[in-house]
């Protein structure tokens, strides 16, 4: 029983955080058709608000908060601020909420800045710009020490530490974030805005002829997607309790969300969450069976004999496998496991009922 419980505690925050990132990518790619290859940018933005800004805001706003320098004396400062947060539940909760709002604003601004240079251009230029801007942002945060101590990173105090054991608290917090994100994206995509996004994805010229402003739509979809991704980065950092820029690399926070979206089904929120779950299971399975995988490789490499491949890093297998999986998905089932469904607007329902009636009449 304890094992199952610890598995749930271990699994839910991961699935929730990556689902939120993938849902945000689904808005951008699944609905709007924009290739955001710089997904790591807003996630890191949100993470920095949590890891670098919230503790310092706490120090600046409350005069009785410990004043040890948070960046250059991070170890002691982090412990002192944590103790202060634990003894001041109201103040720290307020900071947590304020930080989340700032993370949303930072994420939206980063999305806005990243898409602005290539508003008028084709998707490939947009993709390259987004990668470049994400890398510039990472480089600045990696090298400019007053933000995160350079490559050393910081230890992050938890504003919700007073609530109880961290794993339980963040089980609820991340689940709440996921539910809110699902409700938000599902609602948004049923509005005229959501339909305009799909229109833009299908045919930009046709959408423009119907009066849809493509540039404004690109800006808005990237800004909304980035704001959502920033909340995931924010909660992720609060949960993990530490932040280094190198944790937020192109593979985990850009390529993997793409894999999840394409595998589950671009344009289908439920499919995306399914994609995240499958990734989680596959990744854990590779980790769990790594000894068997290694001996299998040794067997193949030695063609039946036994050679020593203890040097082989099994995490490499995961990368090779997921690279192949993504190409196979694009080849065999580009719509993903759960394909996109048509939006059930009143007009769509009417046409569907008319078609059914016609069908019945023909049968009769």
């Amino acid at each position, binding site marked *: 029983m304890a094992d199952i419980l610890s598995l749930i505690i271990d699994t839910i925050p991961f699935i929730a955080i990556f689902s939120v990132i993938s849902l945000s990518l689904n808005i951008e790619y699944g609905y709007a058709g924009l290739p955001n290859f710089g997904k790591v940018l807003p996630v890191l933005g949100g993470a920095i608000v949590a890891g670098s800004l919230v503790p310092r805001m706490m120090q600046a706003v409350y005069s009785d908060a410990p004043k040890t320098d948070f960046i250059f004396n991070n170890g002691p400062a982090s412990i002192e601020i944590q103790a202060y947060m634990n003894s001041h539940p109201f103040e720290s909760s307020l900071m947590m909420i304020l930080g989340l709002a700032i993370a949303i604003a930072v994420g939206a601004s980063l999305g806005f800045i990243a898409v602005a240079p290539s508003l008028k251009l084709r998707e490939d230029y947009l993709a390259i710009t987004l990668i470049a801007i994400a*890398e*510039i942002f990472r480089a600045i945060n990696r090298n400019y020490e007053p933000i995160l101590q350079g490559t050393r990173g910081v230890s992050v105090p938890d504003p919700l530490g007073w609530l109880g054991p961290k794993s339980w608290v963040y089980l609820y917090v991340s689940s709440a974030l996921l539910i809110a994100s699902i409700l938000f994206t599902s609602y948004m995509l049923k509005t005229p805005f959501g339909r305009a996004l799909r229109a833009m994805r299908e045919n930009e010229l046709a959408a423009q002829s119907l009066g849809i402003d493509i540039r404004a739509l690109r800006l808005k979809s990237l800004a909304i997607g980035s704001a959502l991704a920033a909340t995931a980065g924010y909660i992720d950092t609060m949960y993990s309790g530490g932040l280094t820029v190198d944790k937020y690399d192109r593979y985990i926070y850009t390529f993997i969300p*793409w894999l999840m979206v394409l595998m589950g089904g671009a344009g289908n929120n439920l499919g995306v969450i399914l994609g995240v779950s499958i990734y989680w299971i596959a990744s854990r399975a590779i980790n769990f069976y790594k000894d068997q995988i290694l001996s299998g490789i040794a067997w193949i490499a030695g063609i039946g004999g036994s050679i020593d491949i203890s040097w082989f*890093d099994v995490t490499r297998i995961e990368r090779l496998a997921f690279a192949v999986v*993504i190409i196979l998905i694009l080849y065999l089932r*580009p719509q993903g496991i759960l394909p996109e469904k048509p939006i059930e607007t009143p007009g769509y329902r009417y046409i569907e009922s008319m078609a059914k009636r016609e069908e019945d009449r023909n049968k009769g």
Partner: protein
Amino acid sequence: MPDLGGLVSCTSGFLNIPLQQIVGFLFYMAILSLMGLGLTLAYQTTRVPNFAYGFYIGIGMYVSFLGHSKILGIMPPYPLMPLGFLLGGIASLATYLLVIKPLSSRGASIVQLMIATIAVDLFGSTLLYILSDYYYYVQKIYTAKGFLFRSEDVVLISNPQITAAPIIALVLMPSLVILLYLFINRTKIGIAMRASIESPGLAEIMGIPTNRIYILSWFLSGGLGGLAGALYPMWFYVDPNTPARILITVFAVSIAGGLSSIYGPFPGSLLVSYAESILPSQIYGCLYSVGYPYSSEIFKYGYVFPMILIVLFIAFAPTGIAPAISRAAYRLSLIIRVKRYG
């Protein structure tokens, strides 16, 4: 009278560039132009930015590594350069035949093709990591995770030390430009290639086997990457992460030059090489001479400069430098003609 002392010392710091750095700049420009040429060539055929290009460059780098005294013992590894070209070309061809072509014939969008090339890059770079792990942990060659062959190169001038690599690169680059020019303007295949790039449908109607032309272009594209990659460790440090980092620099070369022009990478590489290898030390020289305490910090950001160039070009001049140069050349030729014939 304003105090001009700071400005004067800043300018002198700005202009004080050591010879070895200029040589490094020229070498970097030459290999970047080869890499950029390859990337642009593949882009022009299928209109897909190939994010797997770093992998072909990485193949070239590790082919040079095989020249290590404990492996093949060919040092300096210049005889291995054709192998770098061949293997880079084969990897690129495999990307085209196994991934790009089947996917595009199934109607994949540009975005889907781009993500497929990212997957190829991930696959290929992981293979290179495994190779470096093997040589590091099994063969105990500890340079497998970081190598530089400048000290093993043939020394041409001893003070300041200038090795053979920059000279080879500087001979190779212009000769390839001339060959390329002759190839696409004078040979039948070259003209067919230009036709297939400019208008694939029309070229096919005229009986040009566009698929074969694309195969050739993709092979050449990866081959150039492999060749340039094989030269890279003769002057610069390489670790398994270098191909991923240099990919963005090569994109900067192609975009600054203009993705629509086959000659774009040449002015593009000039600009990018300057921005990465000379500009940071010029800024340092200027800041240091005026007494700015954190002036050396600028070197940490050297690799960011090409990325900034990408953003600036896409925002303000997405067609790049090459079309502007050809427009200027056209205007000049008009002026000359008008003057000559009245």
